[in-house]
């Protein structure tokens, strides 16, 4: 049998539809599992006005079951038997008496008949509806006189529940299930009676409702592409916008409109943003890739004039919006031409960055000083004066009219304004790029000036919040410090910038005249970076235990070097030599640990012994300076190779030599040899953190 559930409501926000469909499916599958009702494929999806689920091959009934419960002895006091009867819901006559080694014991056999699918579903639907969790829900209607009235994302208006041809009768939220639904608001406004779960989708299609979001998305994408092609243009693809429009329409009809090419003087990003965010329009490009003065909107009906009035209306709305945008943009251009980009800076004093970290103007000064220092110290290759100026101008556009209206284009607008008044393109790019990377997968700045400003800005934020004792806690990270730290790491590794972070922190303390030179927040922040590094590197397949192994050596605050070491280590421990050496190390560590509780009672015997013991000693003499020199030169692969040379002697030692020799002096010498081996390994990484 086929089961259909359609929960009809007033327009469900587009962004919530997919997750709601997923939740509906999960809740349904769980309910069926709990009730023991078998079913085949389950599909759930949504339109703006309905959240629906179809289940194929639903069994006619659940299987029956029998459960045995052991009770008290037949001779037990009446009270105990009474309690058992109450618990099981049976009468004394229904209990079975069974011989057991402990005498006659009462058993209850509780038989549950299989229940029909209709019964089970009628019970499940109200549970699913009442238990549903929306990101935001509301009350409505006469029932809302009680504050405990039903909650749904928007008013729930009807429930259609069919098992093949039959209504599954149930009621919830004051609604009784039926076979009625409604088609498209305009094209088929009346009540539509559905014949069966099988015919539902086609009946709605005839009523101008496409129930599958994938189909609506496909129509939007292909039709929009075709319209663009007909106009000699190409669609700028935007999967998010396709999904959003599919969530706003039951019968999507893409239409192409145009705007006055004069508006193209406004920065492209502003035009695209206002089209996308405010109007949900697709942007188009001409054959050269430039933004075309046209757009595609998606209507929710086939208009009786072919869409002419809709196109006209949308064109007028966009024109008004672009007039506004152009007004702001021209105002900003005039302002920078009169007073330079610097003209905006005084207004930054009016914006509070954080009450404990001062105004944005103060932050800008800190970032400028830090950016200059990063370059002067030689850590970054950019010209210190350029970096400082770029940092000083980086936030200027935040008080521009355009960014005031379209906050998402911060940075971009600053760059355009800078270029408009002939500021060095390296500075202009840094203004745009200093916010990057905005998240995993975003572009990472690589130009030296951009790197300087992007790093200085993020580090200042991190230093500021950590030094003021406001690190993120648990899931709370209101200032997005995790993202800032990840950004720092991404920039450092992309540009292979060698930055001793502790030295930078000390410089910050000097610049800010903070107290304490080795403040606790510094170590806290280093650990925070190490955690971010593990998260960042997890996707790249770098093992977190190896990061720990290198980080545990302490003192490493250059993440580029740290990562090089971790990668060499990872390559090594995954070889046969590495695996064996690790095994030898672990064995060594265990022996040394045990020896701590039972230290040798004599001084170590002189000499290096003989055989395998002497061989290991000789090998260490050879390998140790090699490994140390390689680490000092940051030739980490060579350092690993030096360790690899120890594998044979270590294996040989454990094969041939008994560490715990009866002679305490010999035992002491062998333990000292193992300690040397351990220390040699620790010169490269703390292997005790390595798993496996």
């Amino acid at each position: 049998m086929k089961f259909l559930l359609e929960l009809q409501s007033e327009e469900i926000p587009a962004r919530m539809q997919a997750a709601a469909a997923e939740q509906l499916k999960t809740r349904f599958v769980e309910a069926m599992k709990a009730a023991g009702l078998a079913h085949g494929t389950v599909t759930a999806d949504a339109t703006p006005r309905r959240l629906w689920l179809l289940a194929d091959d639903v069994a006619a009934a659940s299987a029956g079951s029998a459960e045995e419960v052991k009770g008290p002895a037949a001779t037990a006091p009446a009270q105990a038997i009474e309690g058992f009867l109450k618990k099981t819901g049976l009468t004394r006559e229904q209990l079975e008496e069974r011989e057991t080694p402990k005498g006659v014991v009462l058993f209850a056999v509780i038989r549950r008949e299989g229940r029909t699918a209709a019964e089970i579903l009628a019970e499940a639907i109200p549970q699913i509806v009442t238990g549903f969790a929306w990101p935001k829900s509301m009350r409505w209607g006469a029932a809302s006189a009680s504050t405990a009235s039903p909650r749904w994302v928007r008013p729930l208006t009807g429930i259609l529940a069919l098992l093949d041809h039959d209504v599954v009768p149930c009621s919830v939220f004051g609604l009784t299930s039926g076979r009625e639904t409604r088609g498209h608001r305009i094209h088929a406004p009346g009540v539509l009676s559905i014949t069966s779960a099988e015919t539902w989708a086609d009946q709605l299609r005839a009523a101008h409702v496409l129930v599958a979001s994938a189909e609506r998305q496909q129509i939007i994408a292909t039709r929009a592409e075709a319209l663009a092609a007909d106009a000699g243009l190409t669609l700028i693809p935007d999967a998010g916008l396709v999904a959003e429009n599919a969530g706003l329409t039951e019968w999507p009809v893409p239409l192409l409109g145009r705007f006055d090419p004069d508006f193209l003087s406004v920065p492209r990003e502003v035009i695209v943003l206002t089209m996308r965010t405010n109007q949900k329009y697709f942007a188009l490009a001409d054959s050269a890739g430039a933004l075309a003065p046209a757009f595609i909107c998606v209507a929710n009906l086939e208009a009786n004039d072919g869409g002419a009035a809709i196109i006209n209306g949308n064109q007028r709305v966009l024109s008004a919006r672009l007039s506004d945008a152009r007004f702001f943009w021209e105002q900003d251009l005039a302002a920078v031409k009169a007073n330079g980009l610097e003209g905006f800076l005084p207004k930054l004093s009016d914006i509070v960055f954080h009450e404990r970290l001062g105004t944005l103007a103060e932050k800008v000064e800190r970032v400028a000083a830090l950016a200059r220092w990063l370059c002067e110290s030689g850590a970054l290759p950019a010209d210190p004066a350029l970096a400082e100026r770029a940092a000083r101008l980086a936030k200027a556009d935040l008080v521009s009219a355009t960014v005031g209206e379209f906050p998402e284009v911060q940075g971009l607008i600053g760059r355009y304004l800078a270029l408009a008044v002939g500021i060095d393109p390296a500075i202009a790019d840094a203004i745009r790029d200093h916010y990057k990377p905005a998240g995993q997968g975003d572009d990472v700045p690589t130009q030296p000036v951009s790197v300087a400003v992007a790093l200085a800005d993020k580090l200042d934020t991190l230093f500021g919040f950590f030094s003021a004792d406001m690190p993120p806690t648990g899931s709370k990270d209101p200032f997005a410090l995790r993202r800032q730290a990840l950004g720092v790491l991404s920039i450092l590794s992309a540009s292979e910038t060698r930055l001793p972070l502790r030295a930078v922190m000390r410089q910050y303390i000097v610049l800010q005249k903070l107290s304490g030179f080795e403040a606790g927040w510094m170590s806290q922040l280093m650990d925070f970076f190490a955690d971010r590094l593990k998260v960042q590197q997890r996707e790249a397949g770098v093992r977190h235990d190896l990061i720990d192994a290198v980080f545990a050596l302490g003192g490493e605050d250059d993440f580029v070097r740290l990562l090089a070491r971790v990668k060499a280590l990872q390559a090594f421990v995954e070889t046969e030599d590495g695996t064996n050496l690790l095994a030898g190390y672990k064995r060594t560590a265990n022996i040394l640990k045990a020896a701590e509780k039972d230290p040798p009672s004599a001084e170590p015997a002189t000499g290096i012994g003989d055989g395998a013991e002497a061989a290991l000693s000789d090998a260490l003499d050879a390998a140790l300076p090699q490994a140390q020199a390689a680490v000092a030169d940051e030739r980490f692969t060579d350092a690993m190779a030096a360790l690899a040379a120890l594998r044979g002697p270590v294996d040989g030692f454990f094969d041939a030599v008994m560490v715990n020799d009866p002679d305490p002096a010999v035992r002491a010498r062998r333990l000292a040899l193992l300690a040397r081996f351990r220390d040699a390994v620790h010169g490269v990484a703390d292997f005790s953190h390595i798993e496996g």
Partner: protein
Amino acid sequence: MSKPLSFQSMILALQQYWGAQGCVILQPYDLEVGAGTFHPATTLRSLGPQHWNACYVQPSRRPSDGRYGENPNRLQHYYQFQVILKPSPPDLIGLYLGSLDAIGIDRHRHDIRFVEDDWESPTLGAWGLGWEVWCDGMEVSQFTYFQQVAGHDCAPVAGELTYGLERLAMYIQGVESIYDLAYNDAGVTYGDVFLKNEQQFSAYNFEAANTERLFQHFKDVSEECRALASRGLPLPAYDQAIKASHIFNLLNARGVISVAERQAYIGRVRDLVKAVADVWVEQVK
């Protein structure tokens, strides 16, 4: 196609329509407010168990939005048509669509869309869920199911509809500037009626308003509001809260309230509204 409705005919058509749905047709409240929602017929009447259906035009003042009559889309004084239905009736969307028919919007030709918009008024301590209603991509109404007002749960919940009258009229009449709207069918334009107001009030809002006196007024009306509320007179007290809100808007337009102070002022107005509503809710429960 028949001649599109003039501005005043559109208002009359909406009143006619909602009056026929059982709404009391009220007249504008006689105080300066920032939005139709501030009218006590919405703010206070949305609280308490009593059923209540009303509609009215409300002049709305947004001092900061003034453009000296030079921007074709922005005004510091404009009109909203407000409908409040408590409890929200079944198929309020259907009723709303009927009102669009009444003002001549052909739904087979125009694309009407309900786009998520969660409404929140920090000044009123109020929030609700609903939509912006789009007509061919233009927002023509706000549609909200009130959940809380002045920090009190709405029980029952009211449905609130707000029509931006000038925008809607511009759309219906197909004009590019507010000032070109036909106010009536006898040749009077919106500009004839309101251009001078926009010019003079923009100058007042941005340049002339005496801020020292306004700060004093803000204090005075705040005190009066609390005094009246504590005497069990929520309606007169609410008038004082409305005044406080408008004085704040004026001070804001004059640029004498810093970003940091802004939230504090909004909080003060919200506290006044809350104090009034607490008394009101006690009286109507």
